[in-house]
């Protein structure tokens, strides 16, 4: 039964899991359909990305031109995507169009035609995007950091794949990955002003025949990282070095995840230029315009990462690296202050209303919760989780997961 009014509900079907939230007054309805197959399980680099993008390139009923024209004619933003862990369809429509949004999203997922000529173009387009991104020194350095930490796990490469492999992905490869992914089930997350009864009936008609969920993909190779502690990437940059320091931490479901979110705020992911790393690197030493830190960046089925990023002059990169490493070591070794913890907790509690302002934000929250089998992510539960953590618990999590001796350094330098 789909719950109505101001409630979050989960609805199960054999091959479909749905989370829906009615967001009163929202001018937009957001529909997200997600299949658990992306870069993480692809056999050719770039296959997951292209599989997702191919969904809007044609269905049994319409070609890509018609799909785009129909959506845009209704003022709808309809897009298909391939991401690291999955692929699928997003639709954001003006509220009165919610049924059409769901109908068209389902059409793209259930009836894609995978035209070969479009696959060839999308591969070429993705290769061009990849080369364009490689011109950006921060992006190229970030790719180097992922390679440094995750090799041979698929997270070690861009979701876009590589130029050579993108040429080899065929429409049949995409169709195959999508077909296998469907056997793993579909997650639907919908938020907005919707008629719940009509919604349930529509879902039954669109997805009721999906088979029960299976686990169609073997897990990927475990991340090991490159053997060297330091890794250098050559970038085309005007007098600026891009410094990434960190190591792997925990996956999304890990019990220390929330404690590490608090630790991240203390280290440098909070408001403005707060946190130990931005305060030291930018405010105190004036070394950088950009300096921040995360502890669980990219955490999903596989481990996320501790990462501190600083863009600074090559001449001061050594000083910045020293500062970052010392701050991480100080946090892991000396612990945190009560006041720091209270500020970090207050920050995470305070930003909650901003995470849930729009139907689109709600749809993303619902999707993430379902994807990782998390409890329904309502504000009360989030507040209780954050309040349950005291200084000792956070320090223990920091000691377990911040390991100064294991830090890897990737630096993008002009060359």
């Amino acid at each position, binding site marked *: 039964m789909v719950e109505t009014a101001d409630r979050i509900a989960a609805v199960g079907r054999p091959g479909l899991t749905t989370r829906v939230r009615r967001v009163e*007054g929202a*001018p*937009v309805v957001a529909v997200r359909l997600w299949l658990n197959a992306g870069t993480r399980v692809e056999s050719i680099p770039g296959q997951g990305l292209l599989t997702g993008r191919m969904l809007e390139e044609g269905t049994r009923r319409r070609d*890509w*031109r018609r799909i*785009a*024209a129909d959506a*845009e*004619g*209704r*003022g*709808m*933003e309809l897009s298909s995507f391939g991401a690291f862990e999955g692929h699928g369809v997003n639709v954001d429509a*003006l*509220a*009165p169009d919610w049924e059409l949004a769901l109908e068209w999203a389902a059409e793209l997922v259930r009836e894609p035609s995978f035209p070969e000529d479009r696959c060839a173009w999308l591969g*070429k*387009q993705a290769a*061009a*995007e990849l*080369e*364009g991104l490689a*011109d950006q*020194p921060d992006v190229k350095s970030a790719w180097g950091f992922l390679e440094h930490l995750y090799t041979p796990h698929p997270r070690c490469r861009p979701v876009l794949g590589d130029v050579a492999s993108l040429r080899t992905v065929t429409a049949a490869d995409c169709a195959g990955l999508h077909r296998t992914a469907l056997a793993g089930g579909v997650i639907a997350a919908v938020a907005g002003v919707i008629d719940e009864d009509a919604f349930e009936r529509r879902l039954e008609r669109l997805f009721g025949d999906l088979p029960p969920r299976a686990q169609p993909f073997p897990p990927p190779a475990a991340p090991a990282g490159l053997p060297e502690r330091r890794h250098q990437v050559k970038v*085309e*940059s*005007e*007098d*600026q070095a891009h410094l990434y320091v960190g190591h792997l931490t925990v996956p999304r479901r890990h019990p220390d995840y929330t404690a590490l979110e608090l630790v991240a705020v203390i280290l440098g992911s*909070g*408001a*403005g*230029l*707060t946190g130990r790393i931005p*305060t030291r690197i*930018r*405010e*105190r030493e*004036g*070394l*950088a*315009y*950009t300096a921040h830190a995360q502890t669980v960046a990219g955490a999903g089925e596989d481990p996320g990462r501790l990462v501190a990023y600083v*863009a*600074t002059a090559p001449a001061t990169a050594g000083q910045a690296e020293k500062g970052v490493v010392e701050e991480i070591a100080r946090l892991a070794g000396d612990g945190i202050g009560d006041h720091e913890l*209270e*500020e*970090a907790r*207050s*920050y995470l*509690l*305070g*930003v*909650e209303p*901003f995470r*849930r*302002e*729009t*139907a*689109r934000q709600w749809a993303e929250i619902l999707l993430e919760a379902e994807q990782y089998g998390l409890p329904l992510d309502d504000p009360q539960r989030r507040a209780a989780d954050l309040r349950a953590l005291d200084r000792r618990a956070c320090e223990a999590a920091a000691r377990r997961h911040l390991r100064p001796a294991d830090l890897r350094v990737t630096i993008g330098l002009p060359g």
Partner: protein
Amino acid sequence: MSYQSLASSGAASAAAAAVAAFPGGSCIPGRRQFARLANGLTVCVLENRQAPVVTTALCLRAGTRDDPPGHGGAAHFLEHMMFKGSARFGPGEIDRRTQALGGSNNAFTSHDATTYYFSFAADRWTEALAIEADRMASLTLDPRQVASERQVIREEIAMYDSEPWDALEVAVQARLYRGHPYGRPVLGTRGELRATGREELATFQRRFYRPDNAVLVVAGEASEETVLGEVERTLGALPPGAEQRAGASAVAWPEGMARLRRRKGEVPRLLLALAAPAGDHPDHALLRLLAALLGSGRSSRLYRALVDEGQLCSWIHTDLTEGLEASHLSIAAEVVPGVEPARVEGELLGLLAELVGTRPGLEEVERARQVALADWVLHHERVEQQALSLAVALALFDAEHLDRQMRRLLAASPAALHEAAGRYLRPELGSVLGWSLPRS
């Protein structure tokens, strides 16, 4: 004319969608009240209870165009320094206080204005006003902090110089507005930065950071009575006396299509900037619709011809600035490696000429209108964005500006669009075509 009457007149089917999307009769949702304090501060309360949050946006009519000669970047430098210490809030304290209250803050400088904003949960937003009042009245400008922040901005300049699109955009804008303040880089140059210190920043603040030169918007879950009481209590004592902004000379657009070529990266990038009127000109709304028709969505002319069908570019994007004195419509494209840049240029100019030469059909115009409307709605769902758009509109134009331009967009006929295309989409009338070409 209201959105309702626009829809009833059958002007456009998008107008009917606008009636549903703007149930309160305005493209910014919520109930608006205006007040002016005795010291000249304009206050707008946008009561909107969609979420338990409040954003305060303080917009000052002072920007890069007001930088004193030889001290380019002063407006932006001062924006940074507004976070570096005042009587009650020492260096870094504004961010720490914001974090402790679970909020966010930021600021941005444009050629026409500088805007500061805070977003907090609805039960603690008044701290934003205390911070704004304190730094308006008693900014410290400690020379050590000035020196440290100068270095930070040098790194910001290096970041922009390194990013191929940012670097191209700065170069194109400098050429398009040559001789006009809009052509200056917001961050200034490294040399100007060196020449700018405490004195220049203090003078800039004294001249322009006055309540009678500012607009404050408080948006979200807060009542008019509470807001006005708090604003009077915290900002009511600030002394007026803003200096009159110097009038800018008229823009001398390039004669014909000026060309600019740079070498950077491995991918060819094209940026065409076309002269456009000021943000409050009636034609500006038509140009916004033309920008959507050309480049918003996969069915748009340029996207279809250059990306999806022509397969010459990996993406294209159109944009329209909204300046107080003048604006520009830009078309950006990243070219697929191996494709001859001259071919892309030829195709692009041909497509513009086609639009200038032939009136677009109603169906195409309606699609563009729907896309433009949806873009607006999606972009303005959050209270913070509502507050920022309103603050800038109030500071530079007037309270009706946003709805007036939206109604013009919804009412524009294909014939009116065609005429506007003839006035603005001809590069020979004044434009800059910039190329960033591969080094190799």
